[in-house]
């Protein structure tokens, strides 16, 4: 899968880059759409029908919603306020039916391909426990590539039309291209319609400036993936497959390695996607913003997989916490537990829904549900103790923005994230618990174990140097310094020397070829 994925991805990227400008402007979106559909077909074959169903159902539903709105507005003209209320009620209900029908259709695909197996297996376990002599047959189904990404991205357009944030687009091609654009469909980021649809359809020329800027971003992504992520893959596989024989510190190193690998791999994919976007003149939104500088878990999730966090915030958290029932609950609870804890109750209910779904979105498995619940508990605990911490700082006249305290908070957050990722990566809840127990009880450090993790001292040196470089780049970005702009100001010799060094460092020190197994697109199956 990985080999085909990489080949097809690269192949289509080259096709687009070389031939895009040769096509007339009007034909370019069609070219992009065709390439995206062919890519999808090559990866998922007949399951392309699921993609078409999503595109068509979303397109028709939004058009219908738009028509209902037009009709409603026509009818509202010259009516009394009571009549207006009645008309609005009828048409809003109709819109809601369309919305729910479309959501159900698209979630049914998601359920069938991602969750049916999990629910069948667990139902069978339950039947066993209840001594009922019946077992459901477990269907082996392969999911279409990127189903979780394109479904959520498509639904974001549906919701935005439903809430009246944007109008329904009557151009089927534009909707189809927005949902199926091949660099994004595999791992996101899940853009909003207002972010990319228009730019993708414009078919702007690939300019020299866009091309070089995009290629620089892609190069940085390749550096992170090939030098760091693919190298760490060896260590991570060793620890998570042989966790039983490793000590607590090594299990922690495995989890740390996995967290870094996940970040490097996922963010590098985003660099490549955003780079391709830049080449085509499309501004694809950022999905990462130096997450390991976060001071709390909730801040972490505003910097890590940003598009997913925003999706859950806008389409799950807000609709629940701002619903009539929750508003009533908040008003009542304010009277009992005060102004801080009052809204916290409805917020926590919405938070629980978000993290249950977030866990499930990441995968159909108990470890993913545990991963979601872990984050819910961490964020909830943070919210619960916030007033106490604030008071303590005021009482002892301490500065919360003190640099040392900020570093401490970032380290604490990173530690909590690593523990969460250990749960995420573990093959089962049982393994996760065994590894966690080791991490927190077995402190017997065996240096010799480090040499048995598949990497030699030279690999560790390469990793260290590359990570320091990534850290420096992160610090500069945090200070709003754009490295690419800074390099752009240098004279051509220095500038080119930097690019050549980057290219050949990746080619020589990249962890590829015999003895290495590159990390696949981790979220592609999601």
């Amino acid at each position, binding site marked *: 899968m990985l*080999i085909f994925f990489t*080949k097809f991805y690269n192949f289509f990227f080259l096709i687009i880059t070389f031939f895009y400008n040769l096509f007339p402007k009007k034909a370019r979106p069609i070219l992009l759409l065709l390439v995206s559909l062919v890519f999808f077909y090559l990866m998922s074959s007949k399951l392309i029908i699921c993609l078409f169903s999503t595109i068509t159902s979303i397109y028709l539903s939004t058009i219908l919603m738009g028509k209902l709105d037009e009709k409603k507005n026509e009818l509202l003209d010259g009516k009394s306020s009571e009549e207006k209320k009645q008309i609005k009620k009828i048409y809003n209900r109709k819109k809601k039916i369309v919305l729910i029908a479309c959501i159900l259709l698209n979630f049914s695909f998601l359920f069938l391909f991602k969750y049916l197996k999990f629910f069948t297996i667990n139902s069978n376990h339950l039947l066993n426990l209840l001594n009922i002599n019946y077992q459901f047959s477990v269907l082996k189904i392969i999911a279409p590539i990127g189903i979780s990404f394109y479904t959520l991205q498509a639904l974001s357009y549906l919701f935005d039309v439903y809430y009246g944030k944007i109008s329904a687009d009557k151009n089927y091609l534009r909707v189809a291209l927005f949902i199926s654009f091949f660099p994004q469909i595999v791992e996101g980021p899940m853009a909003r319609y207002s972010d990319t649809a228009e730019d993708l359809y414009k078919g702007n020329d690939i300019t*020299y400036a866009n091309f070089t800027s995009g290629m620089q971003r892609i190069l940085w992504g390749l550096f992170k993936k090939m030098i760091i992520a693919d190298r760490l893959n060896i260590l991570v*596989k*060793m620890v998570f*497959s042989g966790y039983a024989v490793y000590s607590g510190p090594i299990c922690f190193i495995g989890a740390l390695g996995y967290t870094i690998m996940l970040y490097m791999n996922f963010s590098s994919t985003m660099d490549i996607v955003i780079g391709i976007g830049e080449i085509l003149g499309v501004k694809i939104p950022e999905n990462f913003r130096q997450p390991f500088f976060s001071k709390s878990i909730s801040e972490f999730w505003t910097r890590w997989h940003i598009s997913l966090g925003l999706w859950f915030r806008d389409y799950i958290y807000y609709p629940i916490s701002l619903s009539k029932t929750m508003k009533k609950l908040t008003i009542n609870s304010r009277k009992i537990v005060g102004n801080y804890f009052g809204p916290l109750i409805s917020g926590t209910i919405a938070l629980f829904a978000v993290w249950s779904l977030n866990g499930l979105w990441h995968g159909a498995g108990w470890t993913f549900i545990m991963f979601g619940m872990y984050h819910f508990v961490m964020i909830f605990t943070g919210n619960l103790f916030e007033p106490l911490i604030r008071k303590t700082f005021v009482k002892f006249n301490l500065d919360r923005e003190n640099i040392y305290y900020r570093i401490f908070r970032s380290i604490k957050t990173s530690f909590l994230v690593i523990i969460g990722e250990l749960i995420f990566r573990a093959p089962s809840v049982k393994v996760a618990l065994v590894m966690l127990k080791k991490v927190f009880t077995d402190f017997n450090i065996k240096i010799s174990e480090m*040499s048995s993790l*598949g990497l*030699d001292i*030279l690999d560790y040196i390469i990793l260290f140097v590359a990570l320091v470089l990534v850290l420096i780049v992160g610090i500069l970005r945090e200070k709003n310094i754009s490295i690419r702009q800074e390099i752009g100001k240098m004279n051509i010799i220095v500038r*080119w020397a930097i*690019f*050549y060094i980057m*290219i*050949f460092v990746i*080619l*020589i*020190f*990249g962890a*590829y*070829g*015999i*003895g290495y*197994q590159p990390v696949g697109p981790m979220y592609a199956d999601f």
Partner: protein
Amino acid sequence: MKNTIKIIMFITIAAIIYMSLSYLFIPKLNIKKYGMYNTSMYELLAEKQNTIDTIVLGDSLVYSAISPMEIYSKHGYTVFDCAEPAQIMSDAYEYYKIAIDSQNPKIVIIEPNMFFRDPKEKPWFNKTLKILKNVFPLVKYHNNWKNLFFGKNWGHINKGYIKILHTKSGFEYDYMAEELNDNPYVKGKYKAIIPSKNNIYIKKIIEDCKKRNIKVLLLGVPSQRCWNYEKHKVIMKLSKQYGVEYINLNLDDRIDIDWKKETKDRGNHLNYLGAKKVSEFLGNYLNSTNIVESHKHKKGYEGWDQVLKTYMKS
């Protein structure tokens, strides 16, 4: 126009740097006439001339199952896997000729699964892979930076073997039974026909070996997907026809593959655990032939000793 010139200049300089680095990284222990491109296409050519005792011809079954460094580690015999994915007989013959030209093997082992492969069947990606190997020698040998910067340039670390650590369990059924029912891999009747074009190359290799006084062993490597009893019967007949030794590890009691743990892809290829077993068997077999001798710590084989250290760490 200015930008086009810039792009052309950038690519040209990159190509010059690339070629220069390729010369730096490619092992240069073998005969010069093959040049660096062939060295990257045929990994054996990265080996010092006349240092390999045993070559193994075959397809992916070979490079998944036989780890020459495991054999060298225990016995000191120098083995090299001259294998390519989905290798067809004409290519295997080509590789054999190149191997014979640069090495002086005492034993040639042939994995017969490739005998059954359609000579026209060559997945497009294999062709692409070969072209890429040819065009990108630096990509092939980039890992030599460890040797180049921190030691001498010793050639290939795995000697043609590809180490795969992960496991994807195979099925529990007797795939070598004379009558097969419910074979999860093959639907319908089993086919075990050697295409006539392949017979020409089989004959060429075996006869050339005999002429050079090289022992030939037909060695069936364990694979639930590739092997069945029909194929075994055909190869048995073939071995008698040519008077060469034939061992099929799919039937042999001396090796017991645990298909739950020792395969990387549901019984098609072995993983490292399975490869260790096959390599151990092969090491013992070579020992029993009294044809090859240990080269461990001997002059001229420092490269193997050096590579072994790296291999043991990996």
